[in-house]
């Protein structure tokens, strides 16, 4: 009995050490504790047209189904020019979130409010301790401004 307990303890300890050895490209983020599957979506050179984010490789960043939701933990935004731009993150369904559109950040606004800094200075970087939740089945879209377009990266995890 004692040996079994010791073996179990050693196994548990090894699992604990292994926790720190998970490769950074693991499905779950390197910080390792998010209760879901990591995702990263982005959009480049977005002007004054609400545009759905894409995944790496060009696929659409569609809303998850089966009662899963996207939890946004990190956002990076940068203007594509030497002058700052503005953006707002929204969600919806259909082509470029055209149906059931609502705002995620800032959720009280309907026009671009947050700054994407000029491409001569560091970008806007946000890390949310408490993630922003996108309703199930909803796509994530971004709206910028016409003259100084925005490049945006949104990451987080998918979970119920």
């Amino acid at each position, binding site marked *: 009995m004692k040996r079994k307990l010791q073996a179990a303890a050693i196994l*548990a*300890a090894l699992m604990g050490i292994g926790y720190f050895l998970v490769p950074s490209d693991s499905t779950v983020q390197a*910080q390792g*504790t998010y209760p879901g599957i990591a995702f990263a979506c982005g959009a480049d050179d977005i002007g004054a047209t609400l545009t759905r984010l894409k995944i790496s490789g060009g696929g659409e960043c569609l809303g998850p189904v089966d009662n899963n939701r996207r939890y946004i933990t990190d956002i990076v935004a940068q203007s594509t020019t030497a002058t700052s731009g503005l953006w707002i993150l929204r969600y919806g369904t259909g082509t470029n979130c055209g149906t059931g559109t609502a705002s995620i950040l*800032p959720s009280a*606004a309907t026009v671009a409010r947050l700054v994407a800094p000029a491409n001569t200075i560091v970008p806007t*970087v946000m890390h949310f*301790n408490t993630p922003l939740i996108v309703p199930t089945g909803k796509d994530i879209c971004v709206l910028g401004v016409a003259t100084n377009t925005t490049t945006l990266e949104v990451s987080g995890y998918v979970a119920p």
Partner: protein
Amino acid sequence: MRRALLIVFLALCLTGDGQARGRILGLQWTCSVDAINDSATVCASAPEPGQRRYITDIVAQSNGLAGFFALYHGKAAALGGGASCSTSIAVLIPVGAATPRLAAAASTVAPTVLHFNPAIAIPGGRDFCVEGDPGNTITFQVVGYIAP
């Protein structure tokens, strides 16, 4: 036996993540107000009795030049107080300030982003209000969780 239990305990400590970023320690909540001036404005009402709102993240952006803001708690009309936390209002951030002191970044630079870990608790039974700047309106997003 004791040694085995100790090893198990240490292993559990190794795998523990405390208040890891991205984990929600209660029911997630978020509120936002757009383009407000220096009138305290309700962003979120008090949760159910026995529950409190905890603030973990704030994003603030001026819609013009940099403007000042403050966060308050108080009682709004729904709780038998006046409008916009005006009854028994108290400063939540920055505590002790007699006027809005924190800068919301101008509309040409990256927004003001604040993170709190541990979270800042809004006292139970109190509404949550934000106040902006008289000359430059401010847009806010506040995120956190609700727990006892």
